[in-house]
């Protein structure tokens, strides 16, 4: 079975949402800028509640923002 890890497209969708800053997204979700940065860089996996709030703030379905990715072949 291939190794999987939680990937995300928060950075991409922030850019598409008129280059929303990490601080602005954090304010909408109720977390700090550092937590958004940690999520984007894969250093923190958010709770389901925060993940849903991030997706809502970016105007996208959850699965567009967070997804499984194989460590060797990228997004699945």
């Amino acid at each position: 079975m291939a190794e999987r890890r939680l990937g995300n497209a928060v950075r991409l969708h922030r850019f598409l949402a008129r280059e929303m800053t990490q601080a602005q997204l954090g304010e909408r979700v109720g977390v700090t800028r550092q937590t958004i940065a940690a999520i984007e860089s894969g250093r923190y996996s958010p709770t389901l509640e925060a993940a849903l709030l991030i997706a809502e703030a970016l105007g996208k379905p959850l699965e567009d923002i967070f997804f499984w990715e194989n460590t060797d072949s990228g997004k699945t």
Partner: protein
Amino acid sequence: MPIPEQFARVWLATLLITYGIYFALVPGVDTGSMWSQLLSFGMTAVAQAVIIAVASAWMELRHRGGPRRDERDRAIEQRATSVAYHVLMVGVILSGCIMPFSHNGWALFHAAVAAIAIAEIVRNGVIVVLYRRGWHG
């Protein structure tokens, strides 16, 4: 750098310095009068409290009105506390259940203080490491 990580670094440095000096200078056996032993520990505890109070006030002023702790901060703190709990339990078993059969007096006191200090060092060390390396609940 998140505020809780800054605070953990200050705690870590303070514990390493104050209790490092304390355990380097105060022997682990029953020597010296009770008052000199108490004075040594009292000075260490007061020095630690003063450093933490000053650092806390400085960080509070610097980050006034800024974002507070969020879910990531709480998750990291809970993880660090659960790791430190096991360290503390080992220390309590050693100082409270095993050492009383072979040691007494100040040696037991120092062992208990060491257990608490080491557990706190581990807790703050784990917090710093989890902020740097990441945490995936």
